[in-house]
């Protein structure tokens, strides 16, 4: 078994950054106190916890009391959908968490274009007087395509004004799932024009099972987990202090390094893409290449079985994804690839490469070489 894998699946999970790990460590033992306890050491922990939440809020341009800490993006998304009863609009490339939640409400699922980008006009057309929520991902997890969130926010604002004029009391919110792309895109809530924002610590070199939902002060959330009243009663349960301290540090680092990391990853990704295309001119890149996360490459090799390629590469110490992990589990074409209407052959032959902090020039070059040589062998085997 090869111990030193080259990891090309940062969209699935990221390693906890050493600096994040270090700030979390004291809260597991020395500073283990329940933040709700009255004695001084616990009060200290409460202060640290609140400060971490404040840091998180500041980094996205929100206020501390607008943030609910959750156990990750899926929970945040559930909280959003459990807080609405009206009609919801989502796109057909949203994460399963969003799609499955939406299906419990009156809903419209709008179709993205062939590049995997949501069309603003299509969203506008789907809004009815009863629409209460529009939920889109800032960037798609499979294709890495970046969505026109600000333009969608404009539509929502306009609708809100119209409703004010017409006396329609139904509120309308825009929820942005920014789990993917935080380290590469600006996630300032005002800039995005979001009313609700979901973030996931596990995707940005923080601990897993920590996330947040930011909700503008005028959004009313329904408590999802009932108990001792923590997180403003919306999400009870003793606070995940270490997790939140780590999350705050992770987000801080992500925002700090954003522009540098974006350029660095784009360079590595382009190197990978160019070399793969040069070696296999028939390869197909899926999703918009213009509006795409810097570390993302969704590429298909016609005739190849992507899952087989995944296992071959795993054997050679290179870890990639096929489509999205959830889709791979079902043995069917992913709903995202279905949405951009690519053929079965292209879908089956696709792998997703997502670069991140573990990627550097040396291992990217090495991975590229391995992928090319294994693909050549595989094409050779198929010819026989």
């Amino acid at each position, binding site marked *: *078994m090869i111990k030193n894998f080259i990891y090309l699946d940062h969209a699935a999970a990221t390693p906890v950054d050493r600096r994040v790990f270090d700030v979390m460590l004291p809260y597991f033992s020395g500073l283990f106190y329940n933040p709700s306890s009255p004695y001084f050491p616990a009060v200290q922990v409460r202060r640290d916890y609140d400060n971490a939440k404040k840091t998180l809020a500041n980094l996205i341009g929100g206020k501390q009391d607008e943030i609910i800490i959750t156990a990750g993006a899926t929970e945040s998304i559930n909280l959003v959908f459990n807080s609405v009863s009206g009609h919801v609009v989502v796109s057909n490339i949203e994460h399963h968490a969003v799609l*499955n939640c939406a299906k419990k409400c009156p809903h419209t699922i709008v179709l993205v274009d062939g590049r995997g980008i949501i069309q603003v006009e299509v969203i506008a057309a789907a809004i009815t007087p009863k629409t209460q929520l529009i939920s889109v991902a800032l960037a798609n997890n499979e294709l890495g395509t970046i969505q026109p969130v600000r333009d969608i926010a404009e539509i929502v604002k306009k609708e809100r004004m119209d409703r004010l004029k017409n006396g329609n009391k139904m509120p309308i919110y825009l929820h942005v799932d920014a789990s993917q792309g935080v380290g590469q895109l600006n996630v300032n809530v005002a800039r995005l024009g979001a009313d609700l924002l979901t973030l996931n610590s596990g995707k940005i070199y923080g601990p897993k099972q920590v996330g947040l939902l930011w909700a503008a002060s005028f959004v009313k959330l329904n408590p999802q987990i009932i108990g001792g009243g923590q997180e403003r009663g919306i999400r009870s349960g003793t606070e995940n202090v270490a997790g939140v301290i780590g999350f705050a540090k992770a987000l801080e680092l992500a925002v700090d390094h954003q522009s540098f990391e974006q350029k660095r990853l784009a360079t590595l990704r382009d190197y990978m893409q160019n070399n793969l295309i040069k070696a296999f001119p028939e390869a197909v890149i899926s999703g918009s290449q213009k509006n795409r996360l810097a570390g993302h490459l969704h590429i298909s090799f016609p005739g190849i*079985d992507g*899952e*087989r390629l995944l*296992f*071959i590469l*795993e*054997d050679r110490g290179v870890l990639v994804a096929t489509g999205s992990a959830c889709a*791979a*589990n*079902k*043995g069917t074409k992913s709903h995202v690839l279905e949405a951009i209407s690519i053929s079965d052959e292209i879908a089956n032959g696709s792998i997703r490469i997502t670069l991140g902090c573990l990627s550097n020039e040396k291992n990217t070059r090495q991975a590229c070489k391995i992928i090319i040589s294994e693909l050549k062998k595989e094409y050779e*085997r198929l010819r026989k």
Partner: protein
Amino acid sequence: MAKTKVYVGMSGGVDSSLAASLLVEQGYDVTGVYMKNWSQDLPGMKCPWADDLADAKRVAVRLGIDFKVFDFEKGYKQKVVDYMIDEYKLGRTPNPDIMCNQEVKFKLFLDAALADGADMIATGHYAMVLNEKTEKLQSVSSERLRAAFDKGPGALSNSGCRCPEEAASNLSAGVLLRAVDDNKDQTYFLYRVTGKALTKTLFPIGEFTKPQVRKMAENRNLVTAAKKDSQGICFVGQVGIREFLSGYVDLKSGDIIDKKTGKVLGRHDGAIFYTLGQRHGLDVGGGLPYYVVGKDMAKNEVYVASDLNHDSLWLDNVDLAEVHWINDKPQVGDYQVRLRHRAPLVNAQLTFSGNDVKLKLADPQRVITPGQSVVIYDDQICLGGGIVI
């Protein structure tokens, strides 16, 4: 000469992984096949077979062989799942694994593989087969067996009056033999397979013991080497049989009655859940353990006794219906029989009553359950068997 093309059923477990690996080493042109069987759709849950499929594929990829997925969901549902539910409804205790081998692995899979260009199929069963491909099986050297194989079907019986056409088209029916590992031998599950299917079948691991198989898999760096053996009925998966059946049958609670006194001891939640000899899960109070000694499906009553030696738990005469012979009907005489998978072989005298088989066991045996299979052996050879009536 072109290599023999073998399609090996790969379940993602260690046995079939090693089977595939050995076939590659033996120089066959091997294709791995994952058989997608029916599984209950549990909304919102990851499908239970995904990991097994991934493991099977991972091993195939490492071996550098082709890998395919054959979808038998429909056939499996009809032939195995529905059969099982129906049998339970009749108050019997069926064996879906036997049905799966008869109907899916050695029928649907065999046919699909041959249609796809295979010459033979292979599985990771602990069993051995004697056919024109399997050359030396040192552990079996009886002359009778050799003669049986050379003469083809009918050789194991004294009937000897087959029409020539049939003999010609059906030369050298395969002979099913017990595995070397007595503890693991799976011929009990294979007794309803046909001799014809066995001519096209290989069991690459039948001559090894389970510990050897694990060791060999480990030596070959197969990722499944340390994987736990699968337990229970595959398609029922994580939910228990009780929960599974309750989705298909109307459950009525009824009385649990003491067979001796006729006294009602407690209530049950559906007679179909109870199997002869069962001790646990009886909702009756008192210090003594009770055993199910019978049930009446029409009355929805379960009868129990606290006596482990209760007459209805011990039998020395067993009648079998739906009898299947792998090769040909054997002569009346003394044979060995297996009453359950992994149960020791016991001596029995075999006679016929029309199409049914009558067995007189040398010693009475405990808990012979209607619906279960009894498999008949002549030393190493698995002759066939039938279903207890």
